[in-house]
């Protein structure tokens, strides 16, 4: 497709391509300043403790140490949701919680100083999982949150933030059901999205109350907003985004590291860089939320859902920044995939003494679905239904709807994704391979293959506000002012492409401002799936506004009505009479045409991804090989084919499909230490183990912006994990409900299979 457009839908060289392949792209750690200091964090070895004494004198005496800060040195600065987490506190709440900050002239001196800070702790009992946190009399992570339940709702989603789903009459729904299943299912292996670049910030303090922060954030403007509140609305923050070495949602939560850099820069009067190590990244930065669901589901024989009732327990670790938001979005996302008239779904956000969970692509919905679909599988097995048919049937369609994050009901006005799902099933060969529940699709010696399917959709394609300016240059050029840091999706280049299409000038003639909150208007940032529709709309609207002003300017000079004019390649002309024209130059070099574009949130549409997976299980070793993946989606209009393909191939990385096969963060639940916080023990898929991936992408125009596109990259990780459990269960002939399906679990399940088989014979 893309035939009607000059640039949209055609592969275009990424704007940052040369700088990436030559090593000149500037990521945060590549930036330095004269006189810059290194900041390091002293971290707690205890999961829960009160600091009874800190002696920083030995650290301060070390030559090269410029500042040591503890909770005693700084005002009551707080972040989190609710805003109750002190930047430095007297109490530590997880292994790795910040105890003190050091600024020094080199890494090594800073590290030595960290070791020289003497801290005495009064160790407190700790809670490491949902059960112990909710048990009566459990130690409290926060005195103010009794029972370790963090209050629901988040201020940015408004007063009626979705806290659960109540709709219809579940009693009636269960009465109407032909099959009912009930159980507890979890996705509690807290995988780490783990971008290759760690998290960091450089702060440059300016007396008396200003600071410039360069960060690894994927949403730099929002950091300005967040930090403004953290510093009690007393500090003016200028936030500058850099090239980001992967985010996957996690780099929305950079406020703590940024706060450390700011405090140290203020204390020393010098620029300070805090770049946490990979071990710190893995042991102290955000993980996926830990999700567990106890629920009942009712279904008719034909796969129609009649009732969903239960409680979703979410373990957010030692604090929440976005967890209530993830609960709201996740609940709405479950409604999108499970159109059902009767609901009673509650949720509880629980605090425990491990490092925090936070925003990660899939944003609540992946985690909830990974818990819900195994329950649904039992119902589908009972009713002897093909899961593809049931998932397709129950996904939202025109005429359907859902509650979304603000607690309001939205009638869905997007496209019917059934066609994409059918096409995906066809490419995968689903109907030929599906042999029924707990039946392998093929057996060859010790190798058993099984298939599974999952689905996910997210209405956050149109979430939150975006703003952009587009300035026209008299020599036929344009500049986009937008606070977006390129974090890997290629969206910055796509915005250039969109503006080029509106203005009909080659993309090479369009520049983009740095992501600098001092220069650009507001931007929520490319988080969730909002990059294409929400941010794209702001850029398109700004370009259209600029074009309107240009044509109005030219109309006077050409003595024509602006509606009779158009522009191409830096020339304004009368439609049908191209000889009557005016170069953009006519605006003069002493005039600025500046278009402004804004996107207002729109929750009436969602994206969709259905993933089909085939696994091969070795019954001798218990190893699961991911053999094949087919991702099926409809994006309305492809903006950039290779970029989209890359995003969809991302399905197994970033705490996606592989979180069902081998990826997990292993928490020692006696001490609170994460035992695999390094890249040798935390396994990643390598080049030698790539599955075959086919991406089926349809282009049914959406009523979104002028290019009818919606974003989808975010959710490519989301349908896969539950599909893998389904596939592995089918391959081995027994249910596996525990993520990830590691060899020991497989062999255990296989033992059951063999004994059952023997009894059967």
């Amino acid at each position: 497709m893309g035939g009607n457009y000059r640039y949209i839908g055609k592969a275009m060289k990424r704007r940052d391509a040369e700088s990436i392949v030559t090593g000149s792209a500037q990521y945060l750690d590549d930036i330095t300043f004269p006189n810059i200091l290194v900041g390091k964090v002293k971290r707690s070895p205890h999961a829960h403790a009160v600091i009874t004494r800190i002696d920083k004198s030995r650290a301060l005496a070390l030559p090269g140490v410029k500042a040591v800060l503890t909770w005693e040195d700084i005002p009551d600065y707080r972040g989190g949701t609710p805003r109750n987490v002190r930047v430095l506190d007297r109490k530590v709440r997880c292994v790795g919680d910040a105890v003190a900050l050091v600024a020094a002239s080199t890494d090594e001196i800073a590290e030595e100083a960290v070791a020289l800070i003497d801290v005495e702790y009064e160790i407190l009992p700790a809670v490491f999982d949902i059960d112990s946190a909710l048990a009566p009399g459990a130690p409290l992570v926060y005195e103010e949150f009794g029972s370790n339940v963090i209050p629901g709702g988040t201020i940015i989603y408004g007063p009626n933030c979705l806290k659960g789903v109540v709709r219809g009459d579940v009693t009636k729904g269960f009465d109407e059901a032909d099959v009912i299943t009930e159980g507890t299912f979890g996705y509690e292996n807290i995988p780490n999205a783990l971008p290759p670049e760690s998290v960091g910030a450089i702060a440059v303090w300016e007396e008396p109350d200003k600071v410039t922060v360069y960060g690894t954030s994927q949403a730099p403007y929002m950091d300005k907003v967040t930090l403004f509140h953290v510093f009690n609305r007393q500090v003016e923050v200028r936030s500058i985004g850099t090239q980001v070495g992967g985010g996957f949602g996690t780099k929305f939560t950079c406020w703590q590291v940024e706060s450390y850099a700011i405090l140290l820069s203020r204390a020393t009067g010098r620029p300070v860089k805090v770049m946490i190590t990979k071990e710190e990244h893995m042991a102290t930065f955000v993980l996926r939320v830990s999700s567990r669901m106890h629920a009942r589901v009712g279904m008719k024989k034909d796969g129609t859902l009649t009732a969903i009732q239960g409680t979703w327990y979410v373990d957010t670790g030692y604090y929440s920044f976005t967890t209530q938001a993830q609960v709201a979005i996740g609940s709405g996302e479950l409604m999108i995939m499970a159109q059902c008239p009767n609901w009673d779904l509650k949720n509880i956000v629980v605090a425990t003494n491990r490092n925090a969970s936070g925003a990660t692509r899939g944003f609540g919905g992946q985690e909830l679905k990974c818990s819900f679909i195994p329950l649904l599988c039992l119902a589908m097995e009972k009713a002897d239904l093909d899961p593809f048919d049931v998932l397709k049937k129950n996904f939202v369609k025109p005429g359907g709807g859902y509650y979304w994050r603000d607690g309001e009901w939205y009638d869905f006005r997007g496209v019917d994704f059934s066609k994409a799902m059918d096409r995906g099933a066809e490419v995968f060969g689903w109907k030929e391979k599906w042999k029924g529940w707990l039946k392998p699709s093929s057996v060859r010696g010790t190798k058993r293959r099984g298939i599974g399917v999952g689905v996910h959709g997210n209405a956050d394609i149109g979430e939150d506000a975006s703003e952009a300016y587009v300035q026209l240059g008299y020599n036929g050029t344009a500049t986009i002012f937008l606070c977006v840091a390129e974090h890997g999706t290629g969206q910055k280049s796509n915005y250039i492409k969109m503006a080029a299409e509106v203005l009909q000038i080659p993309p090479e003639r369009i520049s983009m401002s740095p992501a600098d909150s001092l220069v650009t208007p507001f931007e929520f940032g490319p988080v969730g799936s909002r990059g294409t529709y929400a941010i794209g709309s702001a850029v398109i609207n700004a370009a259209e506004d600029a074009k309107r002003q240009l044509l109005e300017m030219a109309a006077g000079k050409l003595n024509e009505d602006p509606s009779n004019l158009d522009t191409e390649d830096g020339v304004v002309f009368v439609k049908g009479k191209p000889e009557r024209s005016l170069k953009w130059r006519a605006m003069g070099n002493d005039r600025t045409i500046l278009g402004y574009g804004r996107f207002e949130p729109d929750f009436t549409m969602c994206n969709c991804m259905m993933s089909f997976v085939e696994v091969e299980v070795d019954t001798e070793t218990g190893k699961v090989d991911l053999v094949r993946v087919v991702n099926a989606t409809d994006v309305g209009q492809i903006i950039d084919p290779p970029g989209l393909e890359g995003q969809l191939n991302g399905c197994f990385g970033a705490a996606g499909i592989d979180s069902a096969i081998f990826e997990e963060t292993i928490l020692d639940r006696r001490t609170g230490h994460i035992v695999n916080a390094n890249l040798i023990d935390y396994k990643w898929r390598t080049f030698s183990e790539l599955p075959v991936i086919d991406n089926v992408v349809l282009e049914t125009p959406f009523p979104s912006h002028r290019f009818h596109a919606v974003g989808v990259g975010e959710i490519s990780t989301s349908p896969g994990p539950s599909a893998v459990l389904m596939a592995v269960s089918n391959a081995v002939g027994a249910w596996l409900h525990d993520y990830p399906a590691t060899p020991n679990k497989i062999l255990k399940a296989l033992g059951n299979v063999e004994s059952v088989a023997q009894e059967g014979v």
Partner: protein
Amino acid sequence: MTATKARKAQAKTPQSESVRLVVNGETFDLNIGERRGEIEPFHTLSHTLRETLGLTGTKISCDHGACGACTVIMDGKAVLSCKILTVECDGKTITTIEGLRNRETGKLDPLQQAFIDHTAFQCGFCTPGMIVTARALLDKNPQPSEDEVKEALSGNFCRCVSHYHVIRAVMSVAKPEEVSDGR
């Protein structure tokens, strides 16, 4: 900084006091010491490249020898610069991502161009390590099979999952007749 372009190969200072590196065709004599611009015995090669020589194209991700982001070519072999001490590199010839361009024409290495043409990156953080590793492979084995490419790159981690595009890009240089342009 004591780095110098002068090629005083014969006047080599004693090993204990300085280290001579040839990086991307330039010779650097680096004193061992504690002052700015000098190298300390615990400095890794990746640290020296980035912090002392300003060659920040070499990335540090795990800093632990696990991820391949810091890969450089040393005397013809792809090595992990985070696992090598600079003091051990006296007399070594090193090529980093910044040194892959043709020095006379300024033209990109065919692999760099292929990575652009195939959009063989997303966030790009692992890309320098990928390209350098692939360069070392092609220097030794100009026409590797796809499996040999995968094997060579199996120590380079990518989290966005650009693997498929990377293979296409590398194969387009290795065996141009077998690879379509991927569009």
